[in-house]
């Protein structure tokens, strides 16, 4: 995991390495300065020598300037290293996601990927910056301050050891108790937020059922829960500062007592005493910092793991070595195809599928919910790989094609389709980057979208909001069809892509297909019989198997499922006698 992440530091290796160097220099200055401060008092003020004050003052000024420069440089490089690192992480993840196949995408949820690319990266960035700046600083400061303290007085520094031991153990105990508690709280906290999200999305349901009070009570209970969990965790955490102060004050008192006697017996100066006080601060602060770093790292660890997962994920569909770069025609063949989504899944989703579709044919696919219609067609542009058997396009196994070539020739309108923010024209150009205006308009006319686009105040320049929320479902579907048509594919697959389009427009689209793109193979999945009944052949799928193939008339005679579906859509709903069986 660590290796995957660190590999992404790349061009920011230099700032990542320079930062600790400057941090060390800065710490050295910070150690020297209290020493100089003490000298100002000892050999300047106490001696009454303005000259000494000025001299040491100048030294200290120089030290402060150096410390300033080192500090600024350390800060600058730390910023560069950490933000650069996070940039590379985002880029590496995003780039690799682009290589994912459908099954890779299925493995991670959309929301999960978004969190990994945003929140998780921010966490790692902050942790990385912390580590660069503090991981060296705190222990180094601790060691230097201890060293300086022992140089001043070996016996007094024994007090420090005691303080370090005491505070170290206390901090360790607190942190190790609090950490798991916090992990639990954050989990609950995420749950709370997702319940808010759920409510915002489902506000119409809440209001329609007048469940506002019910939801508020549910929420209050959850937020009350989080409240008490937070208190439980933070109750322990609040011991941190007072314990540290306790250790510090105890040191001060002890040093004052012993130091005073040493000064009187002339083995210590007052200035040295003062700098000992400063070193107490330094040492104990470093200890606090170390415990903080520990917490930061463990918190960032989960994020780092999630990021590494995305980067390490191997796309399971790759371009073949010597890929075929031309698709001969739009013929499709399924040869004893078996398929399941998960290798260890029990049952095949598709079972022994054998099909032959000739180039230019129109093929309808009908089947109940869960009959694997979408799965079947997604094998054609090789969005998933078959488990057994083979799928051939233009006579060649899809696994031998260059992926881009294959997918350019097999255009697919997905069931769950998406428009992107941008103008209508930009969205259409996904199909063909350099399409002319005429091409755009022709595709839209075929998809029966031209008319409504023209009716929009800004026509083809109309801006589509993210997720296409400002066009209706039917309009969205028509735009998606037009986008696919712009590819001028040999095979066009519509996966339930006209469900929100009214029947009249649906018929017009099919008419346009028939007349304008007769050579393209058209595969249409539909719920409505009317969408497929004029097809050259209709495939009836049932629970992952081909139940029947034939024309509308043939199927009405031979397929009970088909007849059933047909009747449910054409005749008045009759009594239960014939529709009693549910297939799910």
């Amino acid at each position, binding site marked *: 995991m660590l290796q995957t992440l660190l590999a992404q530091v790349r061009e920011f290796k230099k700032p990542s390495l320079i930062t600790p160097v400057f941090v060390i220099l800065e710490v050295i200055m910070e150690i020297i300065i209290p020493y100089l*401060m003490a000298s100002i008092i000892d050999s300047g003020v106490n001696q009454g020598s303005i000259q000494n004050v000025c001299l040491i003052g100048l030294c200290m000024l120089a030290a402060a300037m150096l410390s300033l420069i080192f500090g600024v440089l350390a800060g600058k490089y730390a910023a560069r290293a950490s933000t650069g690192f996070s940039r590379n992480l985002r880029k590496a993840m995003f780039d690799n996601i682009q290589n994912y196949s459908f099954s890779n995408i299925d493995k991670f949820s959309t929301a999960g990927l978004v969190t990994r690319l945003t929140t998780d990266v921010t966490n790692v960035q902050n942790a990385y910056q912390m580590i660069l700046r503090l991981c060296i600083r705190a222990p180094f400061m601790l060691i230097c301050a201890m060293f300086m303290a022992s140089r001043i007085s070996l016996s007094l520094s024994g007090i420090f050891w005691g303080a370090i031991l005491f505070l170290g153990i206390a901090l360790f105990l607190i942190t190790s108790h609090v950490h798991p508690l916090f992990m639990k709280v954050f989990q609950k906290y995420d749950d709370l937020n997702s319940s808010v999200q759920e409510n915002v999305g489902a506000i119409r349901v809440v209001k329609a059922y007048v469940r506002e009070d019910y939801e508020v009570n549910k929420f209050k209970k959850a937020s009350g829960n989080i409240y008490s969990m937070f208190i439980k965790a933070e*109750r322990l955490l609040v011991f941190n500062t007072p314990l540290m102060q306790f250790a510090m004050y105890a040191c001060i008192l002890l040093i*004052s007592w012993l130091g005073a006697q040493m000064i009187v017996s002339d083995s210590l100066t007052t200035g040295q005493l003062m700098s000992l006080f400063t070193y107490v601060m330094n040492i104990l602060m470093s200890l606090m910092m170390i415990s903080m770093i520990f917490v930061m790292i463990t918190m960032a660890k989960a994020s780092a793991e999630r990021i590494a997962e995305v980067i390490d994920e191997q796309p399971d569909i790759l371009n073949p070595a010597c890929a075929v770069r031309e698709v001969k025609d739009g013929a499709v063949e399924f040869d004893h195809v078996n398929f399941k989504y998960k290798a260890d899944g029990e049952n095949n989703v598709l079972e022994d599928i054998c099909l032959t579709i000739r180039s230019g044919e129109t093929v309808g696919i009908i089947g109940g919910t869960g009959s694997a219609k979408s799965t079947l067609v997604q094998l054609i542009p090789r969005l998933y790989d078959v488990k057994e058997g083979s799928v051939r396009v233009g006579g060649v196994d899809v696994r031998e094609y260059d992926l881009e070539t294959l997918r350019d020739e097999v255009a697919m309108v*997905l069931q769950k389709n998406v428009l992107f923010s941008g103008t209508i024209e930009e969205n259409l150009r996904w199909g063909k980057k350099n399409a002319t205006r005429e091409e755009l308009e022709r595709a839209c006319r075929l998809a029966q979208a031209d008319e409504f686009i023209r009716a929009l105040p800004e026509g083809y320049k109309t801006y589509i909001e993210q997720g296409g929320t400002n066009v209706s479902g039917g309009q969205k579907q028509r735009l998606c069809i037009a986008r696919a048509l712009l590819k001028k594919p040999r095979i066009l697959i519509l996966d339930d892509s006209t469900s929100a389009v009214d029947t009249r427009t649906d018929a017009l689209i099919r008419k346009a297909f028939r007349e304008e793109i007769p050579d393209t193979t058209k595969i249409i999945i539909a719920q409505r*019989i009317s969408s497929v009944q004029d097809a050259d052949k209709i495939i009836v799928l049932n629970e992952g198997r081909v139940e029947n193939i034939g024309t*509308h008339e043939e199927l009405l005679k031979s397929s009970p499922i088909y007849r059933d579906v047909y009747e449910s859509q054409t005749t008045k*709903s009759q009594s239960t006698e014939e529709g009693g069986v549910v297939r*799910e």
Partner: protein
Amino acid sequence: MNKKKGAGTILKRLFSYVLRYYKLQCLSVLFLIIVSTMASVAGTLFMKNLIDDYILPFIGSSNSDFGPLFRVLVKMAFIYAAGVLSVWAYNRIMVNVTQGTMRNIRNDLFSHMETLPIRYFDTHPHGDIMSIYTNDTDTLRQMISQSMPQLVSCVITVVSVFVSMLTLSAPLTGVTILMVAVMVMVSRNVASKSGSHFIAQQVRLGKVNAYIEEMMEGQKVVKVFCYEDESREKFGKLNDELFESADNANKYANILMPVMGNLSNINYVVTAIAGSVLAITGIGGLTLGGLASFLQFNRSFSQPISQISQQLNSIIMALAGAERVFQLMDEAPEVDGGYVELTNARVEAGRLVEMKERTGIWAWKHYHREDNTTTYEQLKGDVVFDHVDFGYSDEKIVLHDIELYAKPGEKIAFVGATGAGKTTITNLINRFYDIQDGKIRYDGININKIKKADLRRSLGIVLQDTHLFTGTVMENIRYGKLEATEEEVIAAARLANAHSFITHLPKGYQTVLTGDGANLSSGQRQLLAIARAAVADPPVLILDEATSSIDTRTEKIVQEGMDRLMEGRTVFVIAHRLSTIKNSNVIMVMDHGRIIERGDHESLLAKKGIYYQLYTGLLEQE
């Protein structure tokens, strides 16, 4: 935003928000902070006395008496102990104050959000609403738990140290103040630079996040269109822009600490030189011991100032967050001027009598102010639209002159192209939106007079987009009627034809659904939504494309169940599938916000108008 004034009022409001529930706690925290600050100031003062009174006098003398030193150390131990205890105590109290306030803010936000009209959710992106709960309240937590007490303790330290410094030497205090002024100026400069970069960073971060979200959502489309390289390139550009401003923002934030720290070092040197000149020349009565402790004060004076300056960025961010939180709390809630209530009733001697328990008969309780009487009217489900005009804004009317009569027990269907206004009509009946002109009457009562909650309770609605809640299947169905028994839930599920698939789920009715029922197919989710409406058992039912994702064979079965349920009740149906609506009493054909044809299936077909075209479009090839 009027920045200066705005920030002040927001801060004040935030304070008063905290104080509303935690006045006593805040007062004690204030007191404890004073104690702890005093303890640490006393510690600094003690340094002066330690050297001047307990060490210097004995230097060189052979029989030193450490008795007084011991006594003062014991005294100091008590003072320190008080300091440590009060630090612990105020931190402990602050935990309750912070978390309690966070809980109150969340609860207030949520309860208020639930009262907001649908229009609010239409006009505010859901991501924005969410970020109020997550990002904005998180910044507030930091501010209340850390920045606020730190601010208080810094102010107290600065004031008390300032006073102590003045007593030691006024001229030297002047020098320190001058230096501090320089520090403040420099830090403001750096902070404002980093602030502007931080704003740029937030903007670009927002862009990157939006792009990521959009692309992840559409990742499968990207694959299908081989758009990987383009999206990589575009992301790379946005990502680089973000890197640039993040780099700058962090750079300036990072250098603030060394700059402040070393300016205070320089301050120390300058003060030391000026001080020793004063002490040695004897001006202003400054002793050497006095100078030594003045220098200690000098450090404790600049420390809190640099601390505050480092908090500046997070305070600014928290105030922006608080502003958004209060904005939501200030949104005007849904107005409800209704006074007609829905009650249980029983017929006694031909008259309706109000009942406490559920009787199965519902009545509208109508109070008449003019003659101070209350009448009861049985709930029947008679809905009338009387020349209704509606628009989401006054300028853009989307429904024109809608007239509609739905008698109890009738099935009214709406068909028409997408965007014709079918869904909008149903949203008017339950008053998700209020109409511009005309009247909607429910059992003869203008719906504006009916309490919204009662109005909605009498309407069952299955929406176009199915939403399920995190929880078991049982809980989701029970959402329609919270007190429904297990048997009632199962009966409703059977009615909706959902029972068989539910029993096939790993834990049946106790299967927990998450992420809006992500593990169910859209058809299955619709069946659950129908079961949810069925268990509510309302006199009027609205089905908005409720069966669009269910295959037609299953739909037929569901339909039969629904027909049984809806016997004697009013149903409004919207559907694309004409087979769904064929047996309706009245079919309204809508186009561009108007009803252009109405009648039953046969009469509309005979008319050979739009409905005929739609219908024959379906069966064109026969």
